[in-house]
């Protein structure tokens, strides 16, 4: 709206003529449906949704194979339930350290945040170590391989390794992600208290924990 327009003060702003015989364009203001969530955070959520659907596909496939196979063995007979419970506890602890690290980052205490990020990554590494130990045991003592199982249908072994292996790959990715965040923290990138990147990383890590809770139930307990 130009100041030399003679009719500016006599019309409503939305319908003010500006020399062309029609109303001035009204700027489009998108609804703030995500409020304070950053684009990166919304993007991570969308990625996690697709990832969750992948896991859902695996778990449904596992359930279908199991439901159609009367010779499916009881999981706790061959899989180490106690060891996987320890791994579950470990991931829950790492989720706590993750949110605490983020909270310290918001308080502009980067050194404490760095400490908790490293602690979280360490928890992930221990989890991977437990998984490798479990795989070794299953290979050598339980008669399982990626495509065969001595004491039952081969699908029992293949689905187990697909589901837990896919999750283990996520844990590995999360550990790498956490170490990168820790490195950036050590470089002073988050000294100003803007920990949006760390929060996005935390979303991924909590998702890994959430998925393991379901995998632990469906593959080990039931």
């Amino acid at each position: 709206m130009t100041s030399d327009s003679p009719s500016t003060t006599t019309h409503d702003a939305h319908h003010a003529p500006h020399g062309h015989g029609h109303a001035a364009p009204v700027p489009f203001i998108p609804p703030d449906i995500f409020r304070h969530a950053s684009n990166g955070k919304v993007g991570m959520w969308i990625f996690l949704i697709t990832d969750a659907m992948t896991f859902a596909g695996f778990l449904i496939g596992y359930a279908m194979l199991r439901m159609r196979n009367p010779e499916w063995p009881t999981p706790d007979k061959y899989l180490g339930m106690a060891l996987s419970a320890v791994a579950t506890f470990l991931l829950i602890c790492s989720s706590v350290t993750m949110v605490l690290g983020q909270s310290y980052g918001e308080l502009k205490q980067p050194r404490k945040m760095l400490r908790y990020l490293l602690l979280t990554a360490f928890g992930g590494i221990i989890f991977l170590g437990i998984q490798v130990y479990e795989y070794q045991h299953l290979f050598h003592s339980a008669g399982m391989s990626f495509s065969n199982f001595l004491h039952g249908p081969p699908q029992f072994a293949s689905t187990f390794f697909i589901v837990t292996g896919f999750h283990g790959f996520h844990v590995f990715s999360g550990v790498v992600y956490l170490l990168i965040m820790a490195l950036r923290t050590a470089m002073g990138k988050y000294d100003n208290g803007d920990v949006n990147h760390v929060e996005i990383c935390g979303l991924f890590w909590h998702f890994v924990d959430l998925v393991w809770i379901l995998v632990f139930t469906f593959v080990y307990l039931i």
Partner: protein
Amino acid sequence: MAAAAHHMPTFEEKKALYFRVFWYLVGLTVIELLFVQLHYLHVPKVIVSILVCVASVGKAVLVGYYYMHLNHETKWLKFIALLPIIAFFYAAVLAPDSTSRPESKYFFAPDRVYPEHISGSGELHQVGSHEGNVDPRDAAAIRSTDAPGGLAHNPDQPATANENAPGATAHAEPAAPKAAPFVVNVSADEQAYQAPPLFSTAPVPAQSAVATVKPPAVGVGAPAAAPVGGTSSGDTEEDWK
């Protein structure tokens, strides 16, 4: 103004909340392990599974709501986060149905019989080792084997996949035409699987007519109807002459 009026939790409050959720998660994990032991007290496995699943979903909700901060997000982001659950239930409903379809290898049904399975001598050629349905690709293999100008047709030798190998057509010999019609006994189930001809406006023949297969004057095993997965090319009587 509303945002300013909204109470922002302090660090100590958040820390207390995180540890409270942590203990809930640990407690639910222990409860899950105890639920599994109920199986040894002769509690039905279904009930044990339901209890364990409820505890597990409760843990997942706690992680998503408090650790992933969904409690601070808008309803739109919460809705987006719930999308996988909707997809999960959708797939869970569809999955049992898909395995009940005749195309599924988990569906146990009598072998379907197509005209392509029948040689000139009237013998039924069964190829493939599948115990369930005849795969449409097997039907296509038989068609290419028996077709004039394709592979040699030998009524005494069932068609195999090796005959489809490139170069095998060099030894092809035209099959002797069989003038006499023959009748194949087709069960009611097999009749039910007879597909209507593709790309045709002609009415679907009656099942009794489908059961009677008449070989053409030249060539053998002309199909009375297109098999499942087949195309109109090579399936008409004119193509077989």
